[in-house]
């Protein structure tokens, strides 16, 4: 089961770019594991650019699986997976 969210998030990488976290709805999520990544074509004829996706395990109070997406400018929490 999963829930489509598509809400903007803030991404933070540590100085070594080895640790990643994101803030969603004012809460910090620490990325523990990147499970997979992929790219999806866009409706480029309407000016959209390629979307990048990360599926991650991230910890807030507990560990959950999330899909993060990025277009040419912004990051989004795309989906929450149970």
């Amino acid at each position, binding site marked *: 089961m999963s829930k489509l969210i598509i809400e903007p998030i803030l991404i933070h990488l540590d100085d070594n770019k080895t640790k990643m976290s994101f803030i969603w709805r004012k809460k910090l999520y620490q990325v523990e594991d990147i499970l997979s990544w992929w*790219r999806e*074509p866009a409706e480029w004829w309407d*000016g959209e650019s390629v979307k990048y*996706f990360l599926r991650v395990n991230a910890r807030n109070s507990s560990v959950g699986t999330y899909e993060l997406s990025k277009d040419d400018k912004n990051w989004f929490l795309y989906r929450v997976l149970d």
Partner: protein
Amino acid sequence: MGFAHLHVHSEYSFLDGASSLDRLLERASELNMPSIAVTDHNCLTGAIRFYDKARAMGIKPIIGAEVTIEGGYHVTLLCKNTKGYSNLCQLITHAHLCNRNRESFASKEALRQYSEGLICLSGCGQGELPALFKQGNIEKTRGVVRFYKEIFGDDFFVELVRYPSRDGVIGSHRLADFAKEEGLPIVATNNVHYTDMEDYRIKELLNAIDRNIPVSSLSGNRTVEQYLKSEEEMKRLFRDFPEAVVMTEEIASRCNLELELGKPRFPRFDLPDRENDYSYLTKLALAGVSRKYGSITCRIRQRLEHELDTIRKLGFCGYFLVVWDIVRWAKERGIRCQARGSAVDSLVVYALDISNVDPVAYNLLFERFMHPLRKEPPDIDLDVDRRRRGEVRDYIYAKYGTENVACVGTINTYMARGAIRDVGKALQMPQPIIEEACSGIHWLSASKLMEKADTLPELKHSTIYRSAELAEFFKLCVAIDGLPKHLSVHLGGLLIGSGRLSELVPLEWSSGGDIISQYDKDDIERLGIVKLDLLSLPTLTVVGDTIANIKKSWQLDIDMESIPRVDPKAFAMLRDGKAIGTFQLESPAQREMAGRLLPDRFEDIIVSISLVRPGPLKSSMDKIYLPRRHGKEPVTYVHPRLRYALEETLGVILYQEQVLKVAHDLAGMSYAEADGFRRAMTHDRTPEEMEKMRHGFISSCLKKGVNQKTADRVFEQLAAFAAYGFCKAHAVAYAELAYQTLWLKCHYPAEFFAAVLSNQPMGYYPARVLVADARRCGVKVLPVDINKSEADYTVENGAIRVSLRQLKGMSEEALESILKARDTGDFTSLTDFVLRTNISRNIVENLINVGALETFGSREDLFAQLDNLLSLKRKMGKFTKPLFGLVEHRPDITGKGDVKVKMLLERELLSLALSAHPLDFISLDSSFTSMKDLPSVATGRTIKIAGSVIRYQTPPTRNGNRVVYVIMEDGTGIADVTVFSDVQERCGQVLFREGWLEVTGKIQRRGPRALSVIAEELAPLNRNEKPGL
């Protein structure tokens, strides 16, 4: 451990590959890839150039293709060796030729038959094995594995293609596991369709164009992953199956195709008993020379022996015999056929009757055509009577076998207009925007269009190219600019193989039903296959038709070989600029040159044809030559030893053959070396290469006693000449034909114009201009008459009768119906005509409209009868066959039978104005000068003219500024208008967009009779007054 891309689509996957070979190889080089394959869809079009380019870059080329097999499945096939290459050519040929007018595919039997020397990868998602496996049909999949294993053995591999997605790469895991279970090796590919990821848009755009759907309607698995990934990316992608990456190198190492390029491959010629090709060629050449010259002088014998010896040493005797046989066959059947180009330099070619030009008389040099230092096959191009070219072609097929002959393919690529239209359609752009973007564009590439949009006067006023909203659209147009769109038939090229062509060249159907090579003429040349250019030349048809017309009118047999070489009347006509309709001499530039050169001998025509070309004009050679020709400047030679080479052109280098003579006489080079020198000078060269050539030439001259200063000067002249050289042999061959048409026009104008008009479209001018010119030559032009007009134009008591074929919408079937009915007697009334023929109402109406039936009554009366007649005919059951002439063309012109209506109907339905000229109905005030009066206007005077635009020309100029030449006519004559850049700036909007113009300008004369109007102002002719235009 490295990685090789083994499944790559280039631009030659036609609307499925978004990257050029150059870009793919450039990227492969950046990524340090030692080898790469190109595997286009059922096609090897890019193979030869890929092979050459990759090797030049130090990358190992692997030639292959993604072939569709029965069931619509794909397999990726790679050539291990020449046997594999030959088999792939044959398999692709089979896939195409067995499936005319439908999707190409190879049968499995053919795959088995042509499998040797090929490596087979199981294909992308559309492969049979992966597709069946995905469906879960394991037993069937195992059966497929057995089939491929049986055919390809250890050269069969399971192809793993991975595009990361939300669902991961699970499918490829399962397929890899299955392969392991079956003991099959796996190999990683990326099914590359573009070099850089961003270009997925271009691939999708091309796919939408190919399917004729909006790009937003593209369905299926869209991806951005089919780009040329680096070794690291591929290793990362397949980190769980490293062996699949290693296997790419193993496969690449098994592919060691060495193509034998550049080695001539001649067709076999059947020889008489006890003859070899050399002895037979010698026999024919000697017989020809005896026939042509009567007695053979020592000079001729020596030249013949020299040529035959060279031909023998180079192994080209068979080729000459093949061409001789074709020309002989054609001429025996009265088909006009002759060589053009440098082949005319050869005495053997003349002796074999392939050319009509005596190379000895014109001092032509054989070495310009061929010599021992030039290894590529000689090129004998033949011009053939257009109407009968098909017969010659059929003979070649019959003689050498359909499997050994094919037409040369040519690659059609995107230019600006096509790109704008196709991209616009795929993006669902509003039609008016597409039209606006296309208007005013002539022969421009999309990238040049964007470059020039701000500067070209006809484009700069349009805001469309600068619109921010359309910037992306135009970027996409530029992106597909130059990409191949489809293959078509080369105008004249025929391939004759030394065996089955498909063993060396992949073949397919053209849309017109010809079998064509997937390679273009350059690749064919690289392969060394004999290419014969059999070019349709309508002028040869015109000459034949004119002679036939003369025979009919005057009962005279004209032999063009024996017409007087210096005919004062014909040359006077040429000098007066009255060469419209003639071959090569009718263009405005040629007519202007005639007014400056004032030709009075045949050699002047050769000079004129050679001078009126972009190069010589750009280099101002005319300004050096013409004063010498008129005795206004002395004829000088930089060195006395140049007299022999340059005397015929008064000390000026005009012909390529003269370069050879100069290098021979001054620097002591052999003619063969001199031709190598000429060719090196002609091609693009670096300053270092140029310096090397200069040094070689000058030191040779010094050794021959020429001083440094003179040698320097001559070299400079030769270097400048390299840019514009013209082959004298070609000029002589064309001058012969040009003179013939000039002579025929001069002495038999009615017969000549009837022939020219019957062979439209051809030449420079449309039929209406030719008809007007015929009238100026005193030839009466008679209207279409249902009882008198024939299929083609005819001569009637010194007048010409407009043909039935000139009528818009007239089909060949309708024509046949009319002429067949008339065989039994003339039509006596409209009723008789309608009942005895079987043609559509539309054609009957058009015939009435142009007055073809006016002997039976007025237009109004005939129309009044028509309905009843057609219904009567229907009742009588006369319409037993479908109606002919389905092309509907009804003019939207109403009014009673006055002259203006008649003229409008003639223009609309015949594209002629017989009864009157449109300008007759416009009240032009006395400030306008009619074109017939221009010769009497003083130089420098400002005049105003009005007329319709016939044609534009924009030849290159010395300073690079564009000059537009506009040819106009007003019914009384023709005017050549020159529009310089300042006027283009002001009047750019009018220049290319208006069919009728008012021009204010000054009369200029560049020679005694070379008159043109230098435009100062252009304006559209008052639209309200334009009658129906």
